[in-house]
């Protein structure tokens, strides 16, 4: 066996092992603690799990690229809220009044364009100023949230379109509309990261930025594109979610950046960049939603859920560190 094979396997497989563990635990505990007669592993419940993972999951795919790049984007929650406002408000703009229900695709495109533009702004600042992405997006997180509040004050922005709701609630081949979007995004980003030059470059830049520059990779534009991708995905997440709910509070999407980063880190992506996997991020997203659902199923309250997720995140990071140390030691032999 090659040195480090076991630890690599553990790192790759850890999230799936964790998911299996959660399923077993909640199934058994649910038998005793849940007041519901339905089993936790009920098919409908598992389908809902994927659907409910979509808002965080779609953004997490973008965050994985950005983090593999060695950057981070804290503004996704605010971008999400701002795009939701554009989506819902544009449906009532008088200039689209003649479109009837054809206003829906127009509003979708407008929301996605807003997301891309906000992401591009982040990317441009990171590229041209060289300021750390953490600081830049911390600023834009506050700035974009400010725009959200400027738009409609403390009031929610609402537009309920039943055609849209029916579309968003539909189930095709048993899967809900948001699930299809989540799966589609996962496949697309997986392809991007594993089968294209852009994806290879993302890993190269995250591993060693200087070496990437020397190898002739145009690091600045590359990062800007990745910020545009995550902006677009934050917008897509808003499009998918608000098509179904039709009203956005000005504080919606707050803390989403943290849940997204948690999911990505649970999936094994390194905060320092250069390593990470889209499929494992998918696992991380599912693991978090499973935990939320499972703890609610056995009757734990929200604060317990947050506490448990926090503890698990720390445990995962610790485990990851230990495994890496071991891998290095074995290489020396």
């Amino acid at each position, binding site marked *: 066996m090659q040195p480090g094979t076991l630890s690599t396997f553990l790192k790759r497989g850890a999230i799936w092992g964790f998911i299996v563990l959660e399923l077993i635990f909640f199934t058994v505990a649910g038998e005793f603690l849940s*007041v519901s007669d339905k089993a936790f592993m009920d098919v409908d419940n598992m389908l809902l799990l994927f659907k409910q993972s979509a808002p965080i999951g779609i953004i997490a795919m973008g965050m994985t690229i950005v983090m593999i790049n060695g950057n981070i984007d804290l503004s996704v929650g605010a971008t999400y809220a701002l795009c939701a406002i554009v989506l819902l408000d544009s449906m009532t703009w008088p200039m689209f009044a003649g479109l009837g229900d054809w206003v829906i695709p127009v509003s979708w495109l407008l929301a996605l364009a807003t997301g891309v533009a906000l992401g591009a702004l982040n990317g441009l600042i990171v590229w041209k100023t060289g300021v750390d992405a953490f600081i830049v997006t911390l600023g834009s997180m506050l700035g974009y949230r400010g725009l959200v509040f400027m738009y409609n004050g403390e009031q*929610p922005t609402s537009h309920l379109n039943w055609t849209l709701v029916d579309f968003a609630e539909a189930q095709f081949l048993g899967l809900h509309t948001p699930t299809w979007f989540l799966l589609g995004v996962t496949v697309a980003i997986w392809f991007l990261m594993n089968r294209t030059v852009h994806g290879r470059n993302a890993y190269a830049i995250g591993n060693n930025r200087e070496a990437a520059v020397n190898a002739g990779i145009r690091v600045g534009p590359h990062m800007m594109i990745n910020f545009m991708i995550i902006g677009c995905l934050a917008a897509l997440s808003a499009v998918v979610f608000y098509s*179904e709910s039709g009203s956005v509070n000005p504080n919606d999407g707050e803390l989403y950046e943290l849940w997204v980063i948690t999911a990505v880190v649970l999936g094994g992506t390194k905060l320092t960049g250069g390593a990470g996997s889209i499929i494992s991020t998918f696992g991380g997203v599912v693991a978090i939603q499973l935990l*939320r659902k499972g703890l609610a199923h056995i009757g734990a309250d929200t604060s317990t859920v947050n506490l448990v997720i926090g503890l698990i995140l720390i445990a995962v990071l610790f485990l990851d560190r230990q495994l890496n140390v071991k891998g290095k030691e074995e290489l020396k032999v």
Partner: protein
Amino acid sequence: MDYRNALAATTAAAALTIGSTAFADTMTIGITQNNVGVDSYQTTYEQAFIEAAEANDNVEAVVLDAGGDVARQIAQMEDLIQQEVDAIIIWPTNGEAVIPAVRKAHQAGIPVIVTNSNIAEQGFDFVASFSGPDNITQGKRSAEIMCDKFKDMGIEDEAKVVHITGQPGYTTAIERAKGFDDRLPEICPNVEQIDKQPGDWNREKSQKVMEAFLVKYDDIDGVYAGDDNMGVGALNAAKAAGREGIIFVGATNFAVGYEAMERGEYWGSIYQSPVDDAKAALQTAVDVLEGEDVPFLNYFDTPKITQENMDEFDKPVF
């Protein structure tokens, strides 16, 4: 049939009856709350709800909290529908965003009870009942408190009143203002409302509004504010300006309002208890499930509180 057999049969039948009624009477009620822990009203509400559910042997409660997150609340609605609970109580995080989720429950044949603050009118068709405070009556009662005090003081024919409303556009603000504006001329026809401005539920904003009123009007006998928070703001403005003898009446008695009443600076308010709110929500759900005729707007009582009867009430926790 000999005696023993008959006895066995009767016992079995009795056991069966008891068993089946007990089964039919056990109701699983799910609640998804807005944001427990954000203020003590909501925290007290949750505790009271859990206590009330435990006190009722026929109720099993699934108590969830959305943490102010609409997405999480919708997911909780879906989970409750999937678990096939008998009824769902929802404290909306957003009166419009939850309508599709409420419709889903309605389509699944699960009655939905909205608690504390109602959802938007588009969703009324999917709701079994709303349990919460009656804001119009609260406004009316505030008018009555004000008028009664003026009559005691013997100034009911000359008194002048200013009115500070809540945030424009909020149903609670609109309804309370309407109740007050309608009731005051009925009982004190000669009392004049000289001005009305929004205080946005905000103490500082309300204080500024009152400062402007004090400059503008030399004679103010009464102030009605849409809640005690704003009422105390107005009181602070009057104290700073050295104007005395003004009668302050609010609504939703806050701890600050209660304390100002103890000091004798603030006359009265409307007492709205989170415990009553929670109990009313659970009772509404139980009544709906038992097939009783429940009004669509099922209000719980929010009594008048003044300096005279305040010792009958506990100090509000919020």
